[in-house]
């Protein structure tokens, strides 16, 4: 099985999707000859031509508006927004248009073919405009699906599933891991399920939930906890909307403790949604308050990003406090 980094896995998934279906069309800022600012679309224009892989003008609302129309026509657009920080000019097209196309037309028209790819998150010394995790804005929008892979294997399988999914999917790529995360990825076509969480590690004392780049950090915290004899169960949500509450509930019923971690600010973050659901469904089984380990309620900093980010030590401390509650 070949080894790939996350960008190679994404590129490989796009290549497979475009080869299989000539309705699949990739576009965005600099995605043509250059292959995208991170090179996720490298060589696709060479292989599939300028009509199926091309640069757009620098206009995010135009990219998604165009993609909505293209998807409504029956094509399968994979639109790239160069950084998730720059998705907000397209917010109206995503929230009011992509998400509601099927519902408002009574299914006369839909944009199910649409996938929006965008790199998110910190850890690359990107400062406040190249580090945000805007997932919570979109998880408040019925009609969208929000998917976040954690490694190259996930990225390929989930992206292929997103492109073929009958609903519009926002695909958030953890850019810190683009080259840092390397692993075995099957060369052939495969899909991972959207809407299902994955239990990465089983344990009895504590449940830890996260997604994307945060899974690696959670993994390190869990190693520290296990040295202290605390057995952690680790869940990667993979899809944030619609999210797999049942898998988390099942785990918390067993462990009685839950920690959710994300890079985005605390207030209004998706961890709050998980905490509310779990206290509703697991109230009598909880041994300690549900803890959230997140970024601060500030814009994302530049120089002090290590201090800002929820790292393995902050999560380890939350585990200790939970166990000793």
């Amino acid at each position, binding site marked *: 099985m070949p080894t790939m980094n996350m960008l190679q896995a994404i590129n490989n998934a796009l290549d497979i999707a475009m080869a299989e279906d000539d309705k699949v069309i990739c576009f965005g800022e600099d995605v043509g000859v250059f292959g995208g600012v991170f090179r996720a679309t490298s060589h696709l224009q060479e292989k599939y031509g300028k009509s199926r892989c091309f640069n757009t003008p620098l206009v995010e609302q135009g990219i998604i508006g*165009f993609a909505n129309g293209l998807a409504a026509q029956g094509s399968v657009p994979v639109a790239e927004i160069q950084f998730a920080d720059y998705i907000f000019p397209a917010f109206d097209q995503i929230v009011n248009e992509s998400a509601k196309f099927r519902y408002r037309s009574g299914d006369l028209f839909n944009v199910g073919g649409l996938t929006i790819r965008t790199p998110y998150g910190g850890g690359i010394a990107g400062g406040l405009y190249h580090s945000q995790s805007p997932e919570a804005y979109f998880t408040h929008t019925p009609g969208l699906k929000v998917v976040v892979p954690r490694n190259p294997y996930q990225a390929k399988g989930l992206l292929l599933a997103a492109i073929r999914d009958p609903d519009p999917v926002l695909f958030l790529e953890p850019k810190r891991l683009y080259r840092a995360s390397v692993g075995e990825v099957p060369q052939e076509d495969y899909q991972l399920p959207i809407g299902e969480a994955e239990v990465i590690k089983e344990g009895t004392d504590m449940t830890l939930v996260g997604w994307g780049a945060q899974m690696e950090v959670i993994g390190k915290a869990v190693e520290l906890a296990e040295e202290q004899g605390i057995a952690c169960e680790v869940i990667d949500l993979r899809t944030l909307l619609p999210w797999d509450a049942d898998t988390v509930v099942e785990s918390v019923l067993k462990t009685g403790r839950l920690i959710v971690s994300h890079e985005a600010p605390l207030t209004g973050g998706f961890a709050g949604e998980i905490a509310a659901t779990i206290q509703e469904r697991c109230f009598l089984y909880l041994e300690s308050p549900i803890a959230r380990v997140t970024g601060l309620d500030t814009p994302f900093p530049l120089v002090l990003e290590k201090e800002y980010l929820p790292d393995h030590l902050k999560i380890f401390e939350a585990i200790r406090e939970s166990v000793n509650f």
Partner: protein
Amino acid sequence: MTNYVHQPLFMTGDEFSMATFSLLDPEGELYEGAKEPDLPRDHARRLYQAMLATRILDERMMAAQRQGRLSFYMQSTGEEAAVVGATAALDDADMIMAQYREQGALMYRGFSIDEFMNQLFGNELDYGKGRQMPIHYGSRKLHYMTISSPLATQIPQATGYAYGQKLAGDGHCTLTFFGEGAASEGDFHAALNMASVHQVPVIFFCRNNGYAISTPSTEQFAADGIAPRAFGYHMHVIRVDGNDALAVYEATRQARQIAVEQNKPVLIEAMSYRLAAHSSSDDPSGYRAKSEEEAWRLKDPILRMQKWLLKKGWWSEEEETSQQETLRRDVLDTMKRAEKRSPPPLESLITDVYADITPELQRQFDQLKRHIRRYPEAYPRGARSLDLEVNTSTDSQGEA
């Protein structure tokens, strides 16, 4: 090639003057030097009848709104020639992505009075399943994209849709309607730029009707209307008399040729006037002079087309009278039927959010059903949908 000058030369655009293409004068006579378009008798009659039917539908439904039978309505009075004239120049399978005031396009393509009414009353037969306000029509069969309320969002979507048509090579184009107010939105500029760069067969049709709700066009843009913006995007453009159905038809017919044969976008600016209010919630007497409206009534697009048809002998006073009577009766009868129909089933609350109902949506729906079973009188439509007995007098049609 760079054209150097050696003295500062500022330009304002006043150097260009956009002419307005017009064929018929207000009396229905061809202007001197004007050439009648190749519009056969039956086609001309179809165009005119759709304009007339739109006017009558609008009058009746506005009255129904005033009677409290309908929560909301928007008229296209004064702009029928712009909308129907453009639609008549398209192939019936070309896509139309409209703003909200283009019922004339649907009328021309054969959307039935029943179909209009079902949407207006949001009943069980409404294609949109009672989810959107009145006038948000859509028809897959008639290639008419379901209307979306947020302004101008359809314009870049039209560029994308037309790009897909170009790749499919089916010889079709997309026409998108919008008002001069919508042309202030970023979506408009995004759409024109992308269409121009990517050589897309799309027609951007601006209905310049003078007002965006209460804001006159003089407060919407400083330049000479919308048309000159096309120069900046290196795009074909024409300004046309929007109250002259023949001129709109001919301009759009030629625009379609450019779009489909050359894969290029075209901008059309139709100069017209919104004779009626913006919507049923609006009162134009608060922001414009009656005399201004009266001056535009003399240029009524329907009368102009009618006079031309009468002169050609393609239409008669008798047909006019009988068509008006038939339509008025048809609208009233159909409205009564549509009002009485059941609302969409309760399940339509959760269908079409996703292709498949998610477990969480199903859980929320089951909880809602349990609640309605406990308090059926408080939710009469939902209760009836669940076959529970309720006192029908508590339910009122036309709730906003």
